[in-house]
């Protein structure tokens, strides 16, 4: 086997291709679930789950292994880290823009503030930016989203819940 010297930056670059299977416009880097990369004889990738029961966790772990194999990195392991717990505050600015363009309202920032969990803030419509929006359902197609509608442009849209 030929050992190729690879840099951490190169690995990070490759990993930024890995999409979230449920919201494919976002990569794991945008989502903030990529918590660390160590490159030695083995490449160790640290990931954190968004929700305890997120069914995408295993898919993402496999995608990370696949993408590194594709680039010739054979010795890969994925480590699941739980602490500190993922928060929507870790979604990057670029990720927030991508979500908005995709039609999903990005989560409010400052999730550590408990009052945000009580929904006492306005969510802007990703289509017309109006703040006159209403909750249709606290739950949506995946654990991380709620359903809203805009009372101005009438667009129904999903909101990435703030946790």
């Amino acid at each position: 086997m030929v050992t190729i010297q690879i840099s951490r930056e190169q690995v990070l670059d490759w990993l930024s291709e890995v999409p979230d299977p449920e919201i494919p416009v976002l990569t794991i880097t945008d989502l903030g679930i990529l918590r660390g990369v160590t490159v030695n004889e083995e490449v160790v990738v640290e990931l954190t789950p968004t929700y305890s029961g997120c069914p995408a966790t295993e898919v993402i772990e496999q995608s990370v292994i696949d993408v590194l194999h594709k680039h010739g990195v054979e010795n890969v392991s994925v480590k699941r880290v739980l602490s500190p717990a993922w928060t929507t505050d870790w979604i990057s600015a670029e990720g927030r823009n991508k979500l908005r363009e995709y039609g999903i309202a990005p989560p409010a920032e400052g999730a550590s503030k408990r009052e945000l969990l009580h929904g006492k803030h306005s969510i802007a419509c990703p289509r017309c930016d109006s703040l006159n929006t209403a909750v249709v359902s606290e739950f949506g197609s995946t654990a991380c989203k709620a359903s809203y509608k805009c009372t101005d442009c009438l667009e129904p849209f999903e909101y990435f819940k703030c946790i």
Partner: protein
Amino acid sequence: MNRDKALLAYVSRLGDNALILGQRMVELVAAYPELEEELANANFALDFIGQARMFYTYAAELEGKDRDEDDFAFLRDENEFRNFLLIEQPNGHFGDSVTKLVLFESFYLLLLEALGHCSDERVVAIAMRAEKEIRYHLRHNTQWLVRLGDGTDESHERVQASVDSLWQFTGEMFAPDDVDNVFEAEFGGPDLFSIREAWEANIAIVLADATLAMPGDQWMASGGKQGRHTEHLGYMIAEMQYLQRTHPGANW
């Protein structure tokens, strides 16, 4: 009971509560008359099963007998499950399910907050992850309890009956046994006495909002934490474990 045994028992018990409640909620998947509640229930069930997996994975590592999360869920018998009796009660009608969730999750949220300050790093990590999820559940379920209690005469009457009949299963949550005591002393675990005070205060507010009467002191059922269950758990486990018992090691 020594420190290691208490930690294993404590973590595995947290997994049992999460799994058994998650499984109960799975029984209701595709049974809700309305899409929002259908999604809520399925999402909540998924959170509980995810939490059970994290607790069981840790328990299996602590045990060191080459078992995994699936062995804990599918290959243990009824008396090895140490979940609360409250959790295993049948779903009943919607008011029963909502009441059960509010009674348990009000306790569980306080417990997880306290566990976030214990000295075992892994328990802290899981508790802090789970706490965020339960906070979201509880907000939703509390709104429903208030809506049903302060709703029509019929919904009020039926949900008051739910509170009255489930109340007898709440005492067990706060009754410390050896596992709780050793975990508290050795790992800075939750003090169930102060959790009880906070729980009673919170529940009193919710019930008052819901115009429901809070039951007084009464006889409390117990035994779940020691593996002595009501008749309902066995049927549920039989169904849940059927596939692994019939086709050991089956996967896809």
